[in-house]
């Protein structure tokens, strides 16, 4: 039996990696906003969902016109990033900034607002899609070469999976550069550390917060498009579970910490996939794949009992 399990392992790890990158990219949006505002922006799940819907729509309209799937994907990614990023900015402007301007100090207030925004966005998308195509479940229409695949050693690899990993890696590296090496990134870190002092240095925190939502939202949008490409079926409520898990990943890695969010996402992706694959075999079929979330979250609970600050929470006073 052990041999059989081991033979599966490379495939499982690869699939876990895919899922992990999706979580990581969503988690970045959570963690960046938390860094500057100490707000858990639950509406971020819906920003991700909007990216996925944009992905489906771009393929619906452009795939019949443009024969090359990669070109369509690039367009979808750009449009997804822009629309999700701008949506996130609008949400911040309309829902969160007025609360700050009123000097609301109770942190529950923006949190409840975020949950409210989340519902509004879900049903807004449902409404739009209902009127537009009269569809609830949206099906991704992939075209070559995205639907191709090959087998490397024993691992079955789809082209779209490779693209997902590549694009996420680029985004993560780019974000790290932006945050650590540019003027905007330095300003974001300054606002995250001490908003009032940053203000006295001539930095307008509202502008920086707005940019943070834009960047986090754009990452969420890219993650959404890639998610739609990878997992094919989308609906307006599809953001909820990945969003919740990405939030979990952000906490697991140490919320407010960018590297932590990436690590947390990858770890959670692995735990979930490993549990999903091996649980039925190891328990003789008593616990099926459907328990994967239970196992993943049990591990999370245990880990947080011993490291409440998250995996990388300690090293980093610096939060973004």
């Amino acid at each position, binding site marked *: 039996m052990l041999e059989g399990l081991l033979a599966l392992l490379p495939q499982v790890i690869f699939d876990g990696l895919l899922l992990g990158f999706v979580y990581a990219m969503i988690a970045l949006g959570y963690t960046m906003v938390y860094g500057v505002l100490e707000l858990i922006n639950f509406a971020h799940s819906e920003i991700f969902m909007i990216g996925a819907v944009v992905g489906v729509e771009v393929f619906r309209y452009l795939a019949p016109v443009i024969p090359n799937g990669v070109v369509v994907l690039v367009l979808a990614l750009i449009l997804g990033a822009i629309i999700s990023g701008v949506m996130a900015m609008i949400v911040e402007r309309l829902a969160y900034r007025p609360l700050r301007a009123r000097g609301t100090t109770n942190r529950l207030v923006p949190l409840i607002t975020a949950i409210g925004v989340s519902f509004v966005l879900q049903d807004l998308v449902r409404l739009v899609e209902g009127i537009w195509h009269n569809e609830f479940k949206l099906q991704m229409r992939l075209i070559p070469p995205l639907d191709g695949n090959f087998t490397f050693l024993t691992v079955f690899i789809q082209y779209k999976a490779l693209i997902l990993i590549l694009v996420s890696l680029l985004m993560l590296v780019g974000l790290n550069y932006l945050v650590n090496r*540019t003027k905007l990134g330095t*300003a974001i870190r300054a606002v995250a*550390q001490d908003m009032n*002092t940053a*203000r*006295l*240095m*001539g*930095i307008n925190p509202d502008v920086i917060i707005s940019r943070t939502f834009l960047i986090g939202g754009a990452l969420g949008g890219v993650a959404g498009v890639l998610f739609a490409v990878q997992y094919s079926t989308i609906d307006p409520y599809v953001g909820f579970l990945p969003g919740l898990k990405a939030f979990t990943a952000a906490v697991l890695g140490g919320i407010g910490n960018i590297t932590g969010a990436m690590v947390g996402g990858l770890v959670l992706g692995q735990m979930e996939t490993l549990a999903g694959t091996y649980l039925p075999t190891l328990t003789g079929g008593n616990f099926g794949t459907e328990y994967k979330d239970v196992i993943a979250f049990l591990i999370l609970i245990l880990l947080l009992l011993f490291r409440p600050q998250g995996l990388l929470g300690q090293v980093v006073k610096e939060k973004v």
Partner: protein
Amino acid sequence: MSATAVASALEVQSVSKSFGGLKAVNDVSLTVRPGEIFSVIGPNGAGKTTFFNLLTGIYEPDEGSVRFFGKDITGMSPDKVAAQGIGRTFQNIRLFAAMTVLENVLIGHHIHTHSSYLDAMLRTPRHLEAERRAKERAMELLDYMGLARRAGELATSLPYGEQRRLEIARALALEPKLLFLDEPAAGMNPQETDRLKEDVRRLRKELGLTIVLIEHDMSMVMSISDRIAVLEYGSKIAEGLPAEIRTNTRVIEAYLGKGAAGQAGGRA
């Protein structure tokens, strides 16, 4: 010289601020001339820091106005006030702890670094040039404050006196015309205080800055200030040259209690 001509770097007119029933700053007026080193002193709780906060936009005055080189800055937000050319340091050091010395200064230079976000994403030559220039300027300022060799270290790893100087370097990165120093000598040993005095004089002489400081260290205040204003219970009770303040009966009473006049001078 007409009343509106720019004969004043800072013109504060009848500024008041209350918190609840407490009048923290009460009808204070004063004028700071360009290039002056002006000190605001007063016993603990006299409203000095509140007064500073009114001038830098952290609080909005209930009454009165603040003009900076002729421009009305009353009620402007702190970032706008800073952008007008007012830098400040803090009573309790407020450096960005998780950043390097260089990064702290770069934050100060933020509003002068021009490169759009698109430039930054695409790493255009314009962006790289802007970032390079900002770094160069920051290094110059660190060098000026004697901190160049510390550039790569974490701000909090610096000894106390150097952290104070870093705060000044960061404030200078704004390229201000006026510098507010909130108790810059607090917690310094005599050598560090001497160095600070030299620094303040040098900033005025070499950079032409106007400097307003709140300070407790009387020997420092007396030796570097051109003029001094004294606050007590939120009101201005005296203003004048150091020699005048030293012998002012009301000031001595404020510091040492009634009947203490005559034992003037020294540390309060």
